[in-house]
């Protein structure tokens, strides 16, 4: 790209709302963020720091109070087909089989049925769900359900993948496994990923850049580039460099704890 603008540009984006008791809350205050195409970004912060709000703003799911958000030069006002979203719970429709869940975009989003079917077969294979296509969600473990959720988000070939704490509800071992799988999926597809988490270790392990957010009001307090080589392995978590990165993130939360 020749232009100076980055792929995703967030400029002075704010979200204010009024609670039922009449209090004015600033969920997000003047966030500026530029994200290059194909990068893996993690947003990390304690609850109430507005990381999910920021993610949904990029997806066009939440109206911003002020500022601008653009993807590829186009201002985001509503969800577009360029977005894939993975939620904290897999949000699978229990009456649809794995394959029918994965290809739901063809039914409800107007995506091309044939292309979606082809990509579904490819991605289901990649995440090890071949042979499970005709099973129903209730027949799968939590980890496999979330794999279906990830595959569904990729199947209409979006440019941006938004992930809202997708592994938070999983057990530790499944979580480790899925982090490694997500990394290899990303390395082959090279989507731009924004991944929200409250786990510092997860944020460092996955990211090219960790964006640290703090609450009241929600704001960016640090932007750390992770220069660990890829593919990263779970053993690297015990390395000195990895530890340096996690403590660099953690010190912000400790500082925040002192402020309160």
């Amino acid at each position, binding site marked *: 790209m020749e232009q100076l603008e980055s792929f995703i540009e967030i400029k002075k984006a704010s979200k204010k709302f009024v609670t039922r008791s009449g209090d004015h809350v600033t969920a997000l205050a003047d966030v500026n963020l530029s994200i290059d195409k194909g990068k893996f970004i993690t947003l990390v912060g304690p609850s109430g720091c507005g990381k999910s709000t920021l993610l949904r703003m990029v997806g066009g799911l939440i109206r911003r109070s002020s500022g601008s958000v653009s993807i590829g030069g186009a201002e985001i006002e509503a969800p577009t087909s360029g977005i*894939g979203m993975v939620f904290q719970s897999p949000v699978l429709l*229990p009456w649809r089989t794995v394959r029918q869940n994965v290809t739901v975009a063809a039914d409800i989003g107007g995506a091309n049925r044939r292309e979606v079917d082809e990509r579904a077969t490819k991605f289901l294979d990649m995440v090890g769900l071949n042979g499970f296509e005709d099973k129903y969600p209730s027949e799968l473990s939590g980890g496999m359900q979330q794999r279906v959720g990830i595959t569904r988000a990729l199947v209409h070939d979006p440019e941006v993948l938004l992930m809202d704490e997708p592994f938070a509800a999983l057990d530790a071992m499944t979580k480790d496994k899925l982090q490694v799988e997500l990394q290899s999926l990303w390395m082959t597809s090279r989507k731009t990923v924004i991944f929200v988490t409250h786990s510092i270790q997860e944020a460092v392990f996955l990211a090219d850049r960790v964006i640290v957010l703090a609450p009241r009001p929600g704001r960016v307090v640090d932007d750390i580039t992770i220069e660990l080589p890829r593919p990263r392995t779970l053993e690297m978590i015990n390395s000195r460099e990895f530890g340096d990165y996690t403590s660099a993130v953690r010190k912000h939360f400790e500082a925040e704890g002192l402020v309160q």
Partner: protein
Amino acid sequence: MSEVISASVHRKVKSPSRFRFPAPDIVTLASVVVLVAFLSAWEWVLIPLLNISPALLPKPSAIAIALWSGLFVGDLGADILITLQEVFLGYVLGSAIGFALAIPVAGSRVAERILYPYIVALQAIPKVAIAPLFVIWFGFGMTSKVVIVALITFFPVFVNAVIGLRATPAEQDELFDVYNASAWRRFRYLRLPNSAPYIFGGLNVGVTLSVIGAIVAEFVGAQEGIGSAIIRAGFALDTAGVFAAIAVLTFIAATASAAIQAIGRKLVFWMENPKG
């Protein structure tokens, strides 16, 4: 590890596409034994011991004979067909209207505030009390019965459909937001399947009510139907005939309810039990 878990989970989950009759177990056997014991006690102990007149309480064997002769000699077969038609037509009509009205009420607060008070008021009127009106308006024939059955079936289906159409989890709605789904697709692919367990709950309540409705309507004014057969047998002091008609009614209501539940289990295969 997760694969191992899912494999064992899979074995426990029944295949949704196949319906199998349960093997006769000890509980089924016990309930049959209870029935046989009850009928035997009635036939050979209660009646002879207390010397009860057959005009008050006939023996089960007399009821069986009355049922047999009613079906193959008398008009009971024709009466059953009439009542079945009334129940079927009224049930389908009432359920369809209940579901159709639930769509605007569930979808819009304005429609709810306009329609709901009238619907609740309608439900508050005892149907038995207004049944004579329907006979005056629609005559002694089948129409008045169908209307009353429809009126009785309508409410449980309506109320359950409203709850069901609103039962979509917020996160599923957000998923559909991501795809910019149209209102129609949201209804077709999200609201409708989420409401199905509730609707079948309503349909199941409605099916037993619809049989009651048909009989009440026939009591008020009819020349044919099971309700009318009960009245005729009563006037003739044919107590065994009354019991035979009641046995038929019980069988119809139980069979219809079982059929609706079986269809519900098949269509709403992802739920353990239909709600309602």
